[in-house]
């Protein structure tokens, strides 16, 4: 046994200081493909046909080229609707697009408070029409309230944040994942990310938990146990949909055995698409929840200063 102690000491510190400084550990990791509708070709539907989870949909019958174009690309009588809440980062669109309208990126910090923020929207649209909404809703969400909360609940949530704002206890529930999301959640406690350093802990009992962190598309068989865990949590409580499966079902939702993630199952405070979201993306989302990091994505793209090229 003593040689393990010596060995441990000799190895030194392995933990990163990220996000305050240093390495996030995600060098090379591919994120959500970036979408540039200006490059779309008339009549092309290659990406939509290659996108298995239906993150790219073609809305038929819309006005021809150029007009009424606030939410997507309008080319050749159809426009694309891109929903990063369904994207599993498979890179198929990037490969099949003949004009690089979809390009590879390292944009993986995709946690958002409102589901709509995962739908691609023209940046100018964000600033104008849609933007007013986003701003107001963003502020609301920052106060920590999920949709439908009463004023008293909102206040209490805000208060809890003020007192415990720097710490968080999480109960994780696997509602039918492929184990990719679990693998990355487990990685949070390895010496590199060392989640404890941020005051964030996993707890075995929902009764001690502030956050219910759900992975998987929610199989019919796990829907009840999941809702029971939620009911067992003290209020105020938060819910995070971790991974594209939990956000929308992804490639695995629907069918005879699954629902579509948390849609219609539980109220969600934070959506974190990714397949799986990498450990740094999870840390970003957790810190976002306790307001120690800002949301980076609006209208399906990273806005403001980008920490990665």
């Amino acid at each position, binding site marked *: 046994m003593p040689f393990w102690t010596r060995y441990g000491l000799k190895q030194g510190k392995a933990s990163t200081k990220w996000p305050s400084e240093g390495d996030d550990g995600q060098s090379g990791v591919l994120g959500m493909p970036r979408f540039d509708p200006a490059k779309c070709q008339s009549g092309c539907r290659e990406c939509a046909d290659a996108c298995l989870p239906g993150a790219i949909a073609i809305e038929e019958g819309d006005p021809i080229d150029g007009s009424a174009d606030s939410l997507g690309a309008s080319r050749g009588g159809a426009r694309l609707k891109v929903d990063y809440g369904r994207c599993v980062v498979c890179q*198929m669109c990037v490969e099949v697009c003949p004009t690089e309208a979809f390009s590879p990126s390292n944009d993986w910090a995709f946690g958002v408070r409102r589901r709509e923020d995962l739908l691609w929207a023209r940046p100018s649209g964000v600033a104008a029409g849609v933007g007013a909404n986003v701003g107001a809703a963003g502020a609301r969400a920052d106060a920590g309230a999920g949709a439908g909360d009463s004023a008293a609940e909102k206040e209490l949530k805000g208060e809890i944040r003020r007192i415990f704002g720097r710490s968080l206890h999480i109960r994780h529930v696997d509602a039918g994942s492929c184990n990719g999301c679990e693998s990355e959640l*487990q990685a949070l406690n390895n010496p590199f990310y060392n989640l404890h350093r941020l005051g964030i802990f996993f707890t075995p009992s929902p009764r001690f938990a502030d956050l219910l962190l759900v992975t998987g598309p929610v199989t019919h068989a796990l829907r009840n146990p999941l809702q029971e865990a939620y009911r067992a949590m003290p209020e105020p409580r938060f819910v995070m949909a971790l991974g594209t499966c939990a956000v929308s079902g992804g490639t695995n939702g629907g*069918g005879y055995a699954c629902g579509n993630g948390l849609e219609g199952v539980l109220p969600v405070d934070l959506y974190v698409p990714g397949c799986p979201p990498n450990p740094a993306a999870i840390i970003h989302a957790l810190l976002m929840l306790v307001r120690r990091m800002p949301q980076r994505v609006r209208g399906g793209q990273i806005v403001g200063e980008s920490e990665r090229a």
Partner: protein
Amino acid sequence: MSPEQPPLRARQEAHATPIRDVPLRDLEQRCGAAVAAGARVQLAYAWFPETAGEPHVQGSGAEAAPPETIELRYVVHSSAGHPPEIWRCRPGTLPPPSLASIAPLVSWYEREITDLCGLSFQNQPQPEPLVLLPGARATRPPLRPGAAPPLSYAPEPSSLPEVAGSAHRDVQLLPFGPIRADVLESAQFTFFYIGEGILHYDPQLFFKHRGMEKRFEGIRPELGTVLAERVSAVGSVAHALAYSRALEAAAKCDVPPRAEWLRVLLAELERLYNHLHYFGHLCHTTTLKVGEAEGKYLEELAKQLNAEATGSRFLRSLVCPGGLRREPRLGGIAVRLAKIHREFARYAEMLETTTTHLDRLITTGVLGKQLAFDLGATGPIERASGVDRDPRRDQPYGVYRELPLRVATSDGCDAHARQQVRIAETLNSIELIQAALGGLPSGAIRAECPPAARGEGLGWAESPRGSVYYAVHLDSAGKLARVKIKSPSFSNWRVFPHTVHQSNMMDYAINEASFGLTVAGCAR
């Protein structure tokens, strides 16, 4: 190794797995004779072939195929060292005989066929549902072609074995799950125990059944890898590889040599990070804290290497039918790998000399050789029980034949043997990656692999946890009609409870960790 493209004619043999028609009345006798001669039934499944001129209508919901068109398939290995053969059996309207009493591992496959395809077997020794939980109802067998209505659940208490006899009041019952403590996959375990001793152990593993096989139905074959990689993330490469090889067999497509070499590289990188995780987790259960931290740290280094090389910490989105979708970045691998190698060699030596750790492993979770073989244990689990099988050597695929592959085995049969086999495999994986980097030929990485209408193929790969098989059938439009997935955890979960009965509670977590099981792969 020469950098020129080596002749790979040998791969042709993988193209056609021979299919033999077995009449229903001969099935038991044929199976009995094969098993007596040392054969192992690898997997069984059912599907509904298209009736001539009548393509399956996706989403029609109509009774597209009458039940009598159902076809049974058994994949059989006459012996290790031989490629498999397929038995095809058309039961018509007759209930086929169960083979479970001849080849026990077939039992789970039969119960799955009953649940999902609606075909019952005569004299099945355990006729209750396997995949469908108690209370689950399917109005129509989900794997019949066409739309499958959602399962309905009327939760009812599962029927657990009853304890009889004078001592039954002393027997405690501990249900655990389906939501378990810690960050773990969902599954429900019930322990029957007296004091420390476990009398009986009953795992319910199918809460996570997602209907993945159904999901392949009707999609274009080139998109299937996206699904295959999401059956069990920690086996993404093996799943995508077995799936792709099945399609390559159907299309009689030859993969370019460079792609075959890179596939070995990816498959061994997958083994590396999985095995490193395994040691960290095993140390967690034996409470060797520094050992746990070091194992998980090495796993993290390996995952970061994966991301650097492929853009994915799980090595996803590369393997495809016909080869690879894009070139990995090989530049930084050698240096990062050397660091992992150095640290792992020291780490493994310490694991093997720490008596407090070894004390907990030795004689824990004993799995005898015969049981391992009969119940279909696979991968490091069977090899640690003295069953010397490995598809990389016995049914060679890719370029393993040209690389310094060493199959590790042990006769120890316990948790320690399983650690030793995985240590040897980790070291060999590093060596294989280095050799693959050194011998990598230049050239194309993808060949055309046009879907063969009405074609079929069988593909396999040795994942870190054991063998993965994909059986693929295409319809007349070249779309996927049926995809059967045999995952290693489905095989090893079948075996695992037999090492728990008669053991003790204190050792349970160690024993489970020593198997390295996944629930997602098993439940699909």
